[in-house]
């Protein structure tokens, strides 16, 4: 028996899962819309560089944009068709800003580019990493951190994040049930790349069907399936690491410093598809759930506007809001024209409750319910006071940046205080202060250098003048002076005449 079996992290909550509403039917297969809109930037880091132009015909899987820096990955055509235009379009981001997108009009032939299997076992590590980079592999759990960076560290144990702890979201669960072999192959390949001796799949005990499938099909003794209790947020990287290994690390620390690396289910399936079938990342599983007639999971082409899926599920009558992500950490999307991206795991339809319950925001009574549920073991009520009173230095003392914004504190707050919003505000204030501080430093440095330069130039000029004067022979100097004198006399004479 594993001694860590009884481990559970501090705090956390057990909200209603609402998972079974979207797991009744299998994952619906891809359908091709009339227009695909692909945001250029779909990952952490620099946006890739466009290599196609308007009017080009592209094949399915063809690269549309190539990595522009080390922290950048490629973008590929999800189907064959024509590049209609390259223009600004709303992207799924809390800021609700528009970004540059590629508009691809499918020709509905769905014609693949020539796929080739990548023999990763006989490739050098750098070449494997380059394949990941070129083929657009990013963390599909939502953070979209480029996979080739994470895969470059050498570690002991690969941890698979199959916790999927947020209510409503079921995309990993369904993918595990239906793509079990592909997933296990992905784990195998990732272990090979990382040099890991074993892998642990951390999965919440509410996903019985996926667990059964995994146990049935897992032939590899190096892959352990670890069932963890269903407590939100068990799927947070640091919490999961603790649940499966007993290791507690702080927010700024990386699991790879301790011999662990954590990959998401979707990422591993993409890895398998890349190395076994030679397919870049062009689709992912997305859960469409909430206030829909028939919630479902879809194998969605990247770039498909979400309205297609919402129509397929059937939106119920009444006002609603579209949330990307789960109910705990998701954010609102402005409309259904927004398209599927690599980071989109779930779209949640929330009905607008016209008759709000007892939701008036009351003062904090320091009941410390938030302390009891905080998985980062922070003091949310203190952070709230300090954020509210703009004592940002104090928030740093109380480790504001270890807050993972999981929302447990807001969830339990009996005074209905939107605590997480306060932390987000404080964090952004601190960051912008830091940036302006850095700018001020740079400006000061520049000014100091300018003064130094002016000073230097002055002395240099003085030196040069002195040198020049020294070089001119005496006779010539006299002659020059006489000439000047004569000129002055002439001028004076002219003046008198006038």
């Amino acid at each position, binding site marked *: 028996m594993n001694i860590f079996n009884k481990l559970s992290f501090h705090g956390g909550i057990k909200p209603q899962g609402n998972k079974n509403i979207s797991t009744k039917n299998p994952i619906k297969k891809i359908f091709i819309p009339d227009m695909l809109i692909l945001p250029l930037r779909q990952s952490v880091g620099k946006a890739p560089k466009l290599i196609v132009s308007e009017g080009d015909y592209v094949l399915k899987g063809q690269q549309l944009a190539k990595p522009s820096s080390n922290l950048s990955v490629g973008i590929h055509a999800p189907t064959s068709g024509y590049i209609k235009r390259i223009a600004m379009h709303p992207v799924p981001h809390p800021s609700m800003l528009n970004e540059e997108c590629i508009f691809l009009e499918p020709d509905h032939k769905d014609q693949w580019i020539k796929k080739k299997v990548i023999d990763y076992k006989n490739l050098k590590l750098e070449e494997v990493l380059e394949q990941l980079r070129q083929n657009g592999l990013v963390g599909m759990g939502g953070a979209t951190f480029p996979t080739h960076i994470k895969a470059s560290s050498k570690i002991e144990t690969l941890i698979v994040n199959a916790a999927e702890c947020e*209510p409503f979201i079921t995309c990993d669960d369904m993918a595990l049930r239906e793509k079990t072999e592909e997933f296990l192959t992905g784990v195998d390949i990732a272990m090979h790349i990382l040099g890991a001796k074993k892998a642990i799949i951390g999965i919440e005990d509410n996903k019985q069907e996926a667990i059964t499938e995994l146990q049935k099909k897992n032939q590899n003794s190096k892959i352990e399936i670890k069932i963890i209790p269903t407590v939100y947020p068990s799927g947070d990287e640091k919490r999961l690491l603790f649940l499966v290994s007993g290791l507690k690390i*702080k927010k700024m*620390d990386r699991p790879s410093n301790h011999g662990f690396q954590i990959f998401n289910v979707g990422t591993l399936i993409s890895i398998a598809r890349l190395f076994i079938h030679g397919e870049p990342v062009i689709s992912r599983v997305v859960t469409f759930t909430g206030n829909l007639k028939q919630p479902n999971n879809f194998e969605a082409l990247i770039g498909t506007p979400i309205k297609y899926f919402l129509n397929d599920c059937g939106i119920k009558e009444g006002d609603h809001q579209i949330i990307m992500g789960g109910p705990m950490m998701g954010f609102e999307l402005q409309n259904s024209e927004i398209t599927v991206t690599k980071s989109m795991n779930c779209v949640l339809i929330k009905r607008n409750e016209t008759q709000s319950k007892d939701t008036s925001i009351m003062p904090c009574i320091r009941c410390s319910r938030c302390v009891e549920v905080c998985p*980062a073991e922070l003091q949310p009520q203190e952070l709230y006071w300090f954020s509210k009173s703009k004592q940002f230095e104090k928030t740093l003392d109380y480790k504001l940046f270890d807050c993972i914004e999981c*929302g447990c504190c807001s*969830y339990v707050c009996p005074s209905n205080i939107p605590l997480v919003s306060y932390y987000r505000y404080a964090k952004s204030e601190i960051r912008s202060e830091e940036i302006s501080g850095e700018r001020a430093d740079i400006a000061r440095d520049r000014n100091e250098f300018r003064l130094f330069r002016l000073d230097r130039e002055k002395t240099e000029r003085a030196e040069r003048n002195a040198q020049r004067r020294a070089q001119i022979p005496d006779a010539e100097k006299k002659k020059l002076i006489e000439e000047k004198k004569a000129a002055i006399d002439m001028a004076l004479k002219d003046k008198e005449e006038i």
Partner: protein
Amino acid sequence: MISSPIIKESDSVSFVMSHVFFALIPSLLIYIYFFGYGILGNLIFGVTLGVLFEYLCLKLRNISAKPFLLDGSTIVTCWLLIISIPSGSPWWIILIGVFSAIVIAKHIYGGLGSNIFNPAMIGYAILLISFPAMMTNWEVSNSLGLNNFLNLKNLFNLFHVQLISNIDAVSSATPLDNIKTYLFLNADNLNPNNFPNYEIFNPRSIINISYFAGGLYLLHKKIISWHLPITLIITVILFSSFMSLIDANKFMGPIHHLLNGAVILGAFFILTDPVTSPTTKRGKIIFAILIGIITLTIRNFGGYPDGIAFAVIFMNIWVPLIEKFTQPKVFGY
């Protein structure tokens, strides 16, 4: 624009408070059983006054009053104050007490969540210092038992109270006060565990036991954590045992300390006021230990029969400092 999380647990402040009322109801019934409806009249009067003061303060402070009146915190404060003072108290005593608690201790310091001192204890302390004779003269149980439930006339006692000189006819000092005076007068020659006219299970100790039961209910419902009440009770037991070991003729033993006075009420209902107590676990334990020690010190050596109120108010001052030095470790540090 909405921001996550978009789901919410249904518990609210008023939900918490309703559990507190539920925990206090049995002791109220026992109180009426032994002493008549006087306490109920006081409660109705005091709570009405408290809500009125709360409403006026909120209006003056330009705050929408409805959610604050519905959250129940004012009612709990007034309730705790009223059951701490003799039920034979006249209406103006209640008026001064409630005014001190709600207007001075709560709203002048910024209202719900911002008060430094426990409002009920400020109200009680002001009364105790200003009117010591009245505050230590408690009604006598007329052992009418169930008949007390029929005698509705008692409800209006607060408006009929005689002048202080006549009070002795219907009231007496509390057992705690009696024992203290007794120990003081007969310091050398008697067994302190066998006082005249005193039974361990007197009406007041039975009410205290019902507070204990209510407290256990709150613990069970996870409305309060164990840290404050259990630490206080253990401190009182250990410290009083220690004192009575030193001199059993001068100092009462733990049973008397727990069953008399306000230790049990304080442990479960007064210390646990979240606004004025520390939020950290270690802080709660330190807070409760010090309150226990101060209370027993006042009881054993001070001029007042009980010391919970003063101990709580004194320790309220230290809460920010206690919290500062008892911060728990953050995950991963």
